[in-house]
């Protein structure tokens, strides 16, 4: 893992955000955000509710129009006006908080729809890939099930696979466990953790602080529409520089105390592939 990060450091950023500004009417939600994401980097974005972190993620996929700045994916500008917007969006996978599978399609058709209709790939080939991924998360028996027959955690894992089958270069996760029952959170986070271990480039908005600490290469703390601080997870969680970040982290104190063992367990697990 250390080696991967070191390699990533010398690479060109895959995603560049320059002084991004987003307003809803008179309300400025994002105020000059700058961020460079390197290939293979896992960035976790934290911050109080309403700080703009979800909006930021949505801007990266042009689900929101922006009022200033620019977003570039490998040199190509992403905006609502981009001519190749649908092409660009195929390179950015996104999973949302609300379970957003298509209710009229079964699990397999949910996954196959975009690769076969948008990317015009061979159905059998995509199906093979989808089934292999479903098997990986233990849901191959659910391939013919409809979303309403799945639990929230299962739906989110299918949503992740649906995004993966488009072969995106960057994955965005917008509070994917926020609406889940506690016992289902783990199964979803484990999948994301595995993706991190495979070296995928990801931006994750989450309120799961133990998870953030374990998975992040870099933590970005957003408050009032600005990046207040960013850095290595251990540095950020143990020794936040700003008063606002300290305050924010204190709201998780209860969880952090219990997390002492939990964190090390998660951390050792995330390092497992290197050890093995």
């Amino acid at each position, binding site marked *: 893992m250390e080696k991967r990060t070191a390699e990533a450091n010398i690479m060109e950023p895959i995603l560049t955000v320059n002084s991004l500004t987003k307003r809803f009417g008179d309300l400025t939600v994002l105020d000059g955000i700058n961020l460079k994401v390197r290939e293979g980097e896992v960035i976790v974005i934290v911050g109080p509710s309403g700080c703009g972190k979800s909006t930021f993620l949505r801007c990266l996929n042009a*689900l929101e129009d922006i009022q200033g700045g620019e977003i570039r994916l490998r040199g190509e500008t992403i905006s609502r006006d981009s001519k190749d917007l649908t*092409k660009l969006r195929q390179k950015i996978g996104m999973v*949302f908080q609300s379970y*957003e599978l298509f209710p009229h399609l079964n699990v397999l058709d949910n996954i196959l729809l975009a690769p076969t209709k948008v990317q015009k790939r061979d159905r059998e080939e995509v199906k093979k890939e989808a089934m292999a991924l479903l098997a990986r998360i233990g849901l191959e028996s659910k391939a013919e099930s409809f979303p309403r027959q799945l639990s929230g955690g299962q739906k989110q894992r299918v949503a992740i696979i*649906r995004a993966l089958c*488009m072969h995106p270069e960057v994955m965005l996760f917008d509070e994917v466990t926020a609406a889940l029952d506690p016992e289902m959170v783990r199964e979803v986070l484990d999948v994301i953790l595995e993706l991190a271990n495979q070296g995928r480039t990801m931006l994750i908005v989450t309120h799961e602080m133990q998870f953030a600490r374990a998975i992040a290469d870099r933590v970005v703390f957003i408050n009032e529409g600005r990046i207040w601080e960013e850095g290595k997870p251990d540095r950020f969680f143990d020794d936040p520089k700003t008063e606002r970040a300290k305050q924010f982290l204190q709201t998780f104190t209860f969880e952090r105390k219990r997390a002492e063992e939990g964190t090390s367990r998660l951390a050792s697990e995330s390092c497992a592939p290197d050890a093995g």
Partner: protein
Amino acid sequence: MPDLGLNVLFKGKNLTRLLGGLGVALQISLLSVGISIVLGILLGVLMTWKNPVSRVLTRLWLETVRIMPQMVLLFLVYFGTTRVFGWNLSGEMSAVIVFSFWGAAEMGDLVRGALLSIPAHQYESAAALGMSGAQTYRYIILPQTVRRLIPLSMNLITRMIKTTSLVLMIGVVEVLKVSQQIIEANRMSSPNAAFGVYLTVFFLYFIACWPISVLAGYLEKRWK
């Protein structure tokens, strides 16, 4: 047992004539329903647009249909247009025009409701997967809209079939008109025919509409 006047049904070709009348009624309603569905879907999509012009026009259409009795519309189209525009529309044609005008507006309102009930994140998930607007409508939005729409539109279809009983007023010989003719013709020989014939008409409408209600209930259960 009182004389129910059912015997006239078996005189001559009376039963066949009644069924023929029902056929005319169903023909008018099915043709109108078909046109209403096509126009209604277009109208429903227009109704969801934020464009104020399309809003006002579609709203005006819907309100006209809701406020105006269908009978007035039938007279307007059948009698009114003949003198003013010199059109010579048949009764059937006028009926199809009025029923489609009415059906499209109500269907449009149902389509609008069904479209608006599709959550915004369905559009967003489709967009995030790189789908174009047309692909989103074709593969995501319309299939879900139709599932919500079919049970609702069944109700409209049965109402349209029932309302065809008005078209006898513009000279269309449908099931009710045939009934009147049979009753008139047999006024002396079987004075009780009114009961028997109208009872038969009641069952004919029931047979035409009941399967549609059953189908609606079945689809509603199946698609939840």
